[in-house]
């Protein structure tokens, strides 16, 4: 996460906690209500302070709606697999590859469900697959087939040549 996002989150959570604390204190009667009212009245009397508070709250309001979008872009641009190309940079988002591996995985007979994770480093690309298999098929053969299919797919369709490892974990046998 970038620093400015952290700061924005900090502000948002801090203010929220502060307001909650204030509300609890007022409800419990630890701070008398008229103190708050008096403070508000005093603040409103000065125009500059009034405007400052208005701006601050408007900022918080906008922040409320922007933060979820910030998270979304974060997860979108999170992990990518770079490919080399003379004409420019090429990046393939992990979501694209994982979604497609899921689809081709399900086409193999005997696989009920499959999840994929990809890690890319300088030495090569590692793939982690988690699957639930049907009990009827031979599972070692199934895994062999899956590994070949995924590796071929990554090699041919996407163009990643250095697939280092394909780890498979069978999570469930149905």
């Amino acid at each position, binding site marked *: 996460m970038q620093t400015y996002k952290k700061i924005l989150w900090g502000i948002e959570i801090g203010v929220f906690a502060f307001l909650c604390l204030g509300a609890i204190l007022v409800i419990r009667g630890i701070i008398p209500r008229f103190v708050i009212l008096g403070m508000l009245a005093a603040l409103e009397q000065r125009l500059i302070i009034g405007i400052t508070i208005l701006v601050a709250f408007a900022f918080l309001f906008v922040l409320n709606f922007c933060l979820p979008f910030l998270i979304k872009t974060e997860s979108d641009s999170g992990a990518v697999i770079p490919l080399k190309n003379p*004409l*420019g*940079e090429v*990046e*393939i988002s992990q979501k*694209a*590859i994982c979604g*497609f591996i899921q689809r081709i995985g399900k086409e193999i007979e005997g696989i009920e469900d499959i999840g994929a994770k990809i890690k890319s480093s300088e030495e090569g690309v590692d793939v982690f697959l988690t699957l639930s298999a049907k009990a009827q098929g031979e599972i070692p053969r199934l895994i062999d087939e899956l590994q070949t299919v995924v590796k071929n797919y990554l090699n041919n*369709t*996407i163009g990643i040549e250095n697939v280092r490892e394909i780890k498979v974990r069978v999570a469930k046998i149905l």
Partner: protein
Amino acid sequence: MIKKEGYEVEKKVVVELIRKSLAEVKGIHSIQRGLWGRSIKIRELKEGMEISLGLIVKEGNVVSQTVRDVQKKVKEEIEKTLETSVKRVDVKIKGIKP
């Protein structure tokens, strides 16, 4: 705005041009939309234009080949039409769909 001698070309036009040339490339499902409108980004540098775009490609094609086609096509089209050199075309694949 892309400045030329005596006239200017709006970025909107360039984006439209890129869209049109992408439509001619095989194996593209759609262009990824940004949160606030524009997904095709154009930057102007002294050495030439830098274009970056997000794509969703179709299943069954070789992705690296499609990307190469896209880059070549976009570069050619812009260099031919606007006579502006294109330094690079960055492509981000955001999805693979049937």
